[in-house]
């Protein structure tokens, strides 16, 4: 039962080619849909074109793609127009208007198809869930080559999309970002809107018969949304979305024909796997995105906490030393038995963290162990002094400028001290008029 899959260029090669072309066509437009917060417009159009397809079919009595394109593209644009109309005339929210329009059109399309089903061979499931696996079965003779029809059509759609997005890149960027400025400059935001809607409609129809609707919706949103998390430049975002779309298709098909076999099942749907792989890419971007990714955020937070803890350790050591100087001025080098346990209690951290911080501090030459525990090196002494100085200056500042009561001074100062650079410290010193002691009566070092 557990047979390894057999790779066949004539079959798998064409399936992947069709998948890649479809995914990239959708992803290209998806960038602008996502940025215009119109992601669901793709969903709406992909459903709403159904009556267009059905009408074209009923009128032409053929499954000729040209007629279907025209019918569907017309209804696709109609969806955009009707949505705006319902939104403005009906005074309802834009997404509600979209919901009303596309469900109505979709239902209308279903009724038309079911009515026609007696006489003509048009099955809703074949329109909605086209089968990518059937791609290599329908070949066109293109010069000396036999090429699947779906690949030819999707390649044409991809080229059209690529050309128009490249030509109108500047206009699409402006109308997506600031439609009011665009209109004031004479670059019609609604013209670009309709261009985008028309392209979405055409792409959706072309993809429908080869790959089905779910994958269209997924590819219109997921690659662009993933790319959005990874960059802050529109050009890079568009490029990345194309790469993600292509990779989703390739790995989608490869996993569709290999993964189920590992568990003794037959191949699964390639389009399903393509959408799933795209979802995995998105998940990975959420976790690993360099700017807002979960891992990045966690690392940044942890790094900052450790820095604060290390500074607190220096502060504790400095205060201990200060106390010593006051009580036993002759024996200033004593570390007073400051060990891991005492540090972890004084700073309020676990013993492991405390040990790690002490290790880091001695490795960077800020403290050194002595028989009794740890003591500050000259570098550590200076940093500890600076921290305690910031703390006491802040306490003074908060008392003078915010009139906080004495028992409210410590905890804000405890936070602020870690974010006070030398320039801010100098300004604090000036604004508190160079205090010699803090509100607690302790010396400002």
């Amino acid at each position: 039962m557990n047979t390894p899959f057999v790779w066949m260029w004539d079959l798998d090669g064409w399936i992947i080619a069709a998948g890649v072309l479809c995914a990239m066509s959708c992803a290209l437009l998806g960038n602008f849909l996502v940025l215009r917060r119109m992601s669901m417009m793709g969903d709406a159009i992909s459903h709403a074109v159904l009556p267009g397809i059905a009408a074209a079919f009923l009128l032409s009595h053929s499954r000729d793609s040209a007629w279907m394109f025209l019918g569907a593209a017309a209804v696709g644009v109609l969806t955009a127009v009707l949505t705006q109309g319902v939104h403005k005339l009906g005074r309802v929210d834009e997404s509600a208007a979209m919901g009303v329009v596309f469900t109505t059109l979709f239902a209308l399309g279903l009724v038309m198809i079911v009515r026609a089903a007696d006489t003509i061979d048009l099955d809703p499931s074949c329109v909605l869930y086209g089968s990518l696996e059937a791609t290599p079965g329908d070949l066109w003779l293109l010069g000396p080559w036999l090429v699947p029809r779906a690949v030819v059509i999707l390649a044409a759609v991809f080229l059209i999309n690529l050309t128009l997005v490249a030509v109108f890149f500047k206009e699409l960027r402006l109308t997506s970002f600031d439609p009011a400025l665009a209109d004031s400059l004479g670059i019609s935001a609604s013209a670009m809107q309709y261009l985008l809607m028309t392209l979405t409609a055409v792409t959706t129809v072309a993809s429908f018969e080869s790959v089905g609707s779910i994958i269209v919706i997924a590819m219109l949103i997921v690659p662009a949304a993933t790319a959005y998390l990874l960059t802050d430049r529109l050009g890079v975002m568009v490029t990345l979305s194309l790469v993600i779309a292509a990779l989703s298709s390739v790995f989608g098909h490869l996993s569709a024909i290999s993964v189920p076999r590992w568990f003794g099942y037959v191949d699964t749907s390639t389009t399903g796997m393509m959408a799933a792989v795209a979802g995995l890419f998105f998940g990975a971007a959420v976790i690993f995105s360099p700017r807002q990714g979960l891992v990045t955020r966690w690392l940044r937070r942890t790094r900052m906490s450790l820095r604060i803890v290390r500074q607190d350790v220096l502060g504790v050591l400095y205060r201990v030393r200060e106390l010593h100087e006051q009580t036993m001025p002759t024996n200033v080098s004593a570390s007073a038995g400051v060990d891991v346990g005492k540090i972890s209690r004084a700073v309020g951290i676990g013993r492991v963290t405390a040990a790690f911080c002490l290790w880091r501090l001695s490795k960077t030459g800020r403290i050194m162990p002595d028989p009794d525990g740890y003591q500050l090196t000259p570098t550590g002494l200076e940093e500890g002094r600076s921290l305690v100085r910031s703390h006491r200056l802040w306490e003074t500042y908060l008392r003078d400028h915010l009139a906080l009561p004495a028992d409210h001074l410590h905890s804000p100062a405890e936070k602020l001290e870690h974010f006070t650079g030398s320039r801010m410290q100098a300004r604090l010193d000036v604004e508190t008029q160079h205090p010699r002691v803090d509100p607690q009566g302790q010396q400002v070092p």
Partner: protein
Amino acid sequence: MIIQRPTGSEHSLDAALSIHDLTVAYHRKPVLWDVDLDVPEGSLVGIVGPNGAGKSTLIKAAMDLVPKASGRVMIYGQPYRKQRRLVGYVPQRESVDWEFPVSALDVVAMGLYGRIGWCLPVTRKYRDMALAAMERVGIADLAHRQINQLSGGQQQRVFLARALAQDARVYFMDEPFAAVDAATEKAIVQLLRELRAKGRTALVVHHDLQTVAEYFDRVILLNTRLVAHGPTTQVFTSRNLHETYGGRLNLLDEAAEAIGRQKVTA
């Protein structure tokens, strides 16, 4: 005292902006009612009025961004669609998505798209022009930052640099002073004065009554209808303000207005 209203005879062809009988309605509710005014070239005009008075609508209607129920707007004697190149626009800062993946320079260069023309790329020459505009408002060093990394004041300066890049003769600015830091506020005032010195005209939606007298030569007091328009010294009176704000003006604002008037006369 009689409320000042420009009469028909004041309309002139060489006014930078001439609004005649302008009425705008949203869903049949009038937002602007029969507004009539002429703005002479080279003036800094504050547009003042309570929330919902139609201040933003006035400048949007002037740029054909909202449909007019009636009336006409002329820029240097011609309708807006023929004079686009003469007009610069600073929208409200909240009107765009600052998470959008573009750099500050990209946004400033957008002011040049009208001049670049359809489908042509933003070449080096235009990027340099955008950079020069950023230099003028002191944010050239932020050119390659993503726009959400900028502070509110810096974002406002990006919009101002974009309007400067448009090199217009009439500027419409929608609350450029809203929630900006003191340094940016100073920079904007400085910029407005430079524009005036070059004979440019600016209409600025403004909320802070305390600074109206200091910043603007002329003021438009608006509350759906035009309450008054004219030189600040003549029109920015407590009586007109009271009428504009319909008694909603509190004591503090009145005091501020009194202080402002003293500054003007001093």
